[in-house]
């Protein structure tokens, strides 16, 4: 029995393919000596590959048939016809144009099945829409398609279980003769093809349109055959001395085929070649002939030979690295000059990079350390020879290895960039709380050193675009780190001419601003610059940069990683503003981040579980790639706490001032939610989490109890959780204390001014432990802004309330009047309508007077309302001012 037929099960065919692979694996190594086996396989694989494809599809169709999945079946069937079309030349070649039985069988089966399903009316009704649609189109397609195979089908149906020994036989034969006489085979094959063409063309008169198809098929098949001939002819040349290049080319082709096949097998994952013993030196093939004169050209040729195998599935990547090392040793032994040395080193680095097959996975630590050794070495070579030029623009033909100035094709910049990316990936791979992470993080010094080296080289080359890129790399390593010397310098403990990271950033960024012509680099540089300023408490510089760059208007058009950087920058800007007691700015910086509730995602510090729809694998992969490594994270609790505290400092006095205002707006929704949810709780325990602390503090502040508020915000728990995370925690705490006192005073005045005729400022300053001038200034500000209707009485040092503000009851009454006015308005309109009808009907004039009167009244009411509104508007303007 042929294996295509009887083996309906998955396992066998798969095992067969695997077998084949195992069989082939040894050929993957650089066996430059024996070629015979390989040639055999090329021919065999075309047939096998096609057949396997077909059988796989057939299997799929059978499976679909079992579960009656029409739509999948339709697509599988389409694939099958396509695959068959592809396989036609092979079939023509191998089986003299006779349609293989297994193919006929599946067609017959399908036909029966479809008819059966079509007949089953009830079943069809119960089918879902998609399936029944597919069934219809499937039936039509199958009918049309089957016409071509009518003869075969009838014969098949006559003897459905006929065996197919002939096929198996044929297979044997073909595998035999393919390795026996590769040259001869071309001629009979052509004949066969012709023979295959004849009967089909002359088959039936009414199949003229189909014969067209056949014709075109034969075209493609012939072209493919030509290729086959070519390979065969080439096989003939294989024994000739100049085989090497041909050999690699052929290999390349074959490998491409393999790749294709793998993909068709739907094998997603990449195969790791696990073979221990191959790399043993004794087995290693010889680099050069023993007595060969080793010179630059030879080495270069060898190198390109090795590199040609790069990036292919079957290449043993580890061996490639070793080969390159060997080559390097040889070249050093023969002293072929720095250029060739560097070239080989570059190749080694590239090979190490290639070792990890997946882009999303991090490389193995041992290779990483190797990389960290290799790159500095290579850079040293480069820096030691200042007249060496390494660039991407240099074509391979123009490379110069033997004399100065050396010209080498390659790009150190991309090497460094790749290195940096790998570094980030490695970090993300580690558990951030383990020692491993710390160990890995220590490598950053090396990475930055390499970047510095490349920087000196590129600066030497003087190409602005590349300088910008390397500068940005450097900036991105620098921007999130706090430099202690900056603060010391500011306090005068360090001499004024010490170079701090701020200065370095300034220099690098300014260069990028001036020279960069891709917008992205500049944007990133600005963001990093702002971040760095904000980190070092240079609030005004940071703010000015943000305002000048106008980034906030365009940032939504940029790529995600830049947007993440923007979010990070805004977060730090908010923190910086908070440290500088610019509460409003801090709040407005953070509000966009905090409002969504997706801070984690916005800062790329972790994936949020999604409720509505699962993200697909690729999406998750992409999102994971965007994540920040742990040491660059911004503490979220700190962010949230700063946001909530600043919201509290703004919102609570505002709430107190506008208690009765129906048009009051919320300043911060998130804060409101927190407050509301705590109010809804029937039992309130002592605060536990940071949020509860802030909410409790807000409640205390509402009553003007600054001390309670302060102790809720700043205590041991909160210090440990939040405030100690600031670099100058004590400064922040004193600032917070002062702000809380001031805002509590304001809140107190708003809330309780209606029960006072006058308050002594001395008393207030005692109550809030504020200096009298501060109290004075706060109250004066409130009076000026018309928030507090009062005046200051200087001799008695007291605030005299004017009591012009309506009391609570009065303001509610005013609101009620507004509402009643509205009601009267709408009632009036209803009445108008009635009256209109009345006029039409009766035409009496009596009602008119009344009506006008009422209108007048109405207008008065409205005027009154307008006055009130005007006053409020004015208030608001003043406040804004």
């Amino acid at each position, binding site marked *: 029995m042929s294996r295509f037929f009887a083996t309906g099960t998955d396992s066998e065919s798969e095992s067969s393919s695997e077998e084949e692979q195992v069989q082939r694996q040894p050929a993957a190594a650089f066996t430059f000596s024996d070629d015979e086996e390989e040639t055999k396989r090329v021919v065999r694989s075309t047939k096998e590959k096609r057949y396997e494809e077909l059988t796989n599809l057939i299997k799929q169709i059978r499976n679909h048939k079992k579960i009656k999945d029409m739509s999948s079946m339709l697509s599988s069937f389409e694939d099958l016809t396509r695959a068959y079309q592809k396989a036609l030349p092979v079939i023509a070649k191998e089986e003299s144009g006779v349609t293989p039985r297994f193919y006929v069988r599946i067609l017959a089966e399908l036909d029966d099945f479809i008819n059966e399903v079509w007949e089953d009316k009830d079943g069809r009704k119960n089918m879902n829409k998609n399936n029944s649609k597919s069934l219809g189109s499937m039936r039509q397609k199958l009918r049309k398609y089957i016409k071509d195979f009518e003869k075969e089908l009838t014969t098949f149906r006559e003897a459905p279980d006929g065996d197919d020994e002939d096929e198996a036989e044929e297979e044997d034969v073909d595998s035999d003769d393919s390795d026996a006489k590769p040259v001869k085979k071309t001629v009979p094959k052509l004949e066969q093809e012709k023979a295959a063409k004849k009967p089909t063309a002359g088959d039936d008169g009414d199949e003229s349109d189909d014969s067209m198809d056949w014709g075109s098929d034969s075209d493609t098949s012939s072209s493919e055959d030509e290729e086959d001939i070519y390979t065969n002819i080439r096989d003939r040349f294989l024994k000739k001395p100049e085989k090497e290049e041909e050999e690699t080319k052929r290999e390349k082709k074959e490998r491409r085929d393999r790749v294709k096949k793998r993909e068709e097998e739907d094998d997603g994952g990449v195969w790791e070649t696990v073979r221990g013993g191959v790399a043993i030196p004794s087995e290693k093939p010889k680099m050069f002939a023993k007595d060969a004169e080793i010179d630059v050209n030879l080495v270069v040729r060898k190198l390109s030979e090795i590199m040609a195998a790069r990036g292919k599935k079957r290449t043993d990547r580890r061996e490639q690295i070793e080969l390159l090392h060997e080559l390097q040793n040889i070249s050093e032994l023969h002293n072929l000059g720095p250029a060739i040395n560097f070239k080989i080193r570059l190749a080694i680095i590239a090979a190490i990079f290639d070792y990890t097959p997946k882009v999303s996975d991090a490389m193995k630590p041992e290779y990483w350390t190797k990389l960290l050794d290799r790159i500095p070495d290579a850079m040293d070579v480069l820096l030691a020879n200042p007249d060496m030029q390494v660039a991407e623009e240099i074509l391979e033909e123009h490379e110069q290895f033997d004399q100065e100035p050396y010209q080498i094709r390659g790009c150190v910049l991309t090497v460094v960039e790749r290195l940096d990316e790998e570094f980030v990936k490695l970090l993300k791979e580690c558990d951030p709380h383990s020692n491993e992470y710390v160990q890995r993080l220590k490598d950053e010094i090396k990475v930055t050193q390499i970047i510095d080296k490349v920087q000196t080289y590129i600066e030497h080359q003087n190409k602005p675009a590349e300088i910008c890129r390397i500068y940005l790399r450097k900036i991105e390593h620098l921007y999130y780190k706090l430099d202690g010397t900056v603060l010391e310098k500011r306090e005068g403990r360090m001499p004024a001419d010490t170079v701090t990271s701020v200065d370095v950033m300034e220099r690098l960024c300014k260069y990028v601003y001036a020279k960069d012509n891709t917008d992205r680099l500049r944007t990133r540089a600005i963001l990093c610059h702002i971040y760095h300023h904000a980190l070092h408490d240079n609030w005004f510089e940071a703010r000015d940069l943000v305002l000048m760059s106008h980034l906030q208007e365009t940032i939504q058009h940029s790529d995600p990683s830049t947007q993440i950087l923007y979010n990070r920058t805004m977060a730090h800007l908010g923190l910086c503003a908070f440290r500088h007691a610019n509460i409003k700015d801090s709040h407005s910086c953070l509000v966009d981040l905090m409002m969504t509730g997706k801070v984690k995602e916005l800062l790329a510090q972790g994936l949020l579980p999604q409720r509505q729809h699962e993200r697909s694998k690729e999406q998750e992969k992409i999102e994971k790639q965007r994540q920040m490594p742990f040491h660059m994270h911004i503490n979220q609790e700190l962010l949230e706490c700063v946001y909530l505290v600043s919201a509290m400092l703004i919102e609570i006095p505002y709430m107190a001032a506008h208690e009765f205002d129906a048009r009051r707006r919320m300043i911060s929704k998130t804060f409101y939610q927190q407050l509301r949810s705590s109010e809804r709780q029937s039992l309130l325990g002592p605060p536990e989490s940071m949020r509860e602390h802030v909410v409790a503090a807000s409640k205390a502040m509402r009553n003007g109890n600054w001390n309670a508020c302060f102790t809720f915000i700043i205590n041991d728990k909160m210090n440990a959780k939040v405030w100690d995370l600031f670099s100058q925690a004590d400064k922040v705490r004193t600032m917070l204390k002062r702000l809380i006192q001031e805002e509590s005073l304001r809140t107190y005045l708003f809330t309780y001014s209606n029960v006072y005729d006058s308050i002594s400022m001395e008393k207030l300053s005692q109550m809030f432990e504020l200096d009298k001038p501060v109290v004075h200034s706060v109250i004066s500000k409130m009076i000026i802004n018309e928030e507090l209707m009062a005046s200051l009485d200087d001799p008695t040092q007291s605030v005299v309330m004017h009591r012009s503000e309506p009391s609570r009851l009065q303001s509610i009454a005013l609101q009620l009047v507004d*509402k009643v006015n509205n009601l009267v308005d709408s009632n009036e309109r209803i009445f108008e309508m009635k009256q209109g009808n009345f006029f039409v009907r009766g035409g009496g004039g009596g009602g008119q007077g009344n009506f006008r009167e009422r209108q007048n009244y109405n207008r008065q009411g409205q005027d009154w309302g307008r006055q009130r509104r005007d006053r409020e508007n004015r208030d608001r303007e003043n406040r804004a001012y």
Partner: protein
Amino acid sequence: MSSKVSGIRGGRSRVVPDDCPINVVQISGLPMMKMIKHCHEEGSGSVDVAQGALLGLVVEKRLEITNCFPFPKQDDSVDEDEAYQIAMMKKLRRVNVDHLHVGWYQSADVGNFISLPLLESQYHYQNSIEESVVLIYDTQKTARGFLSLKAYRLTPQAVVMYKEEGFTPDALRNLKVGYESLFIEVPVVMKNSSLSNILLNQLSDMVPEEDGLGFLDLGTSSVLEGHMRCMMERVDELNQEAIKFNRYQQQVLRQQQDKYRYMQKRAQENAARQAKDEPPLPDEDINKLFRPLPTPQRLNPMIVAGQVNAYSSHVAQFCSQAMAKLFVTQTLQKAKEDTGSAKSLQ
């Protein structure tokens, strides 16, 4: 000895019409206390209302309420509810209590008792037990020291309106039902046994005199604020309804204009056809072309209006009381000051 309950004093007691089966509700101390207890325990939270059944007798147009029992909290199963009531009445009968179901009571805050469910259940009560009343007990007001207990019945118009279930503006106009004529208030009289009266008299002697001054507590603003807030809500609601109705009116008007235009066009065409000796166009059902718009139900605005009315009357009543209290306190204060100054002079 009988005493009138405070609620009636300042209220808008209307004359009870002759055709009403009862004209006064007489309640004894026991059901009253039971009811108050239940309402305060269950219905003081603003969300739930406490409800219960009243038991008693009708004697010559006087409804005597002699006992009551609370309903369990609503759990949406009508059958269970009924079974509970019947069982309860049977058991009370065994202990020689009047077992005739004569109405029900409900706790309320100020004016919010006027609602659709109340209307509905009172309608069903009056349908099955003709003389039944609903007693509304105001927890909030009583908590401030004013016992407030009112008995209501649906007016005959309201019963008719509810029976026909057409709450269109026209139907309401024809029935002459307004928010003020949905319910009719029946005066409530409290009657205790002589024994308990004696006890009360004795107790009142034991109460120290100064505690009586507690009645002078003003507490104006908080109460008024609460009322105002509620009133604002209702007014808003009413406004929404008015706007809805207004929109409806406009639609009707537009439709009518369209209809008129269409008719005129039709008439012109027919005239032209007649001139040419052609048969006139067939008459199509004009209602098919212009479907009558669904008229908005007016029951809800009526109820809301009733609530607003209740609130405003409460506010008015409260204010007049407060005013009186103010005068009283003023004179008291003056008297105190006078005596104080007299003392200091000495």
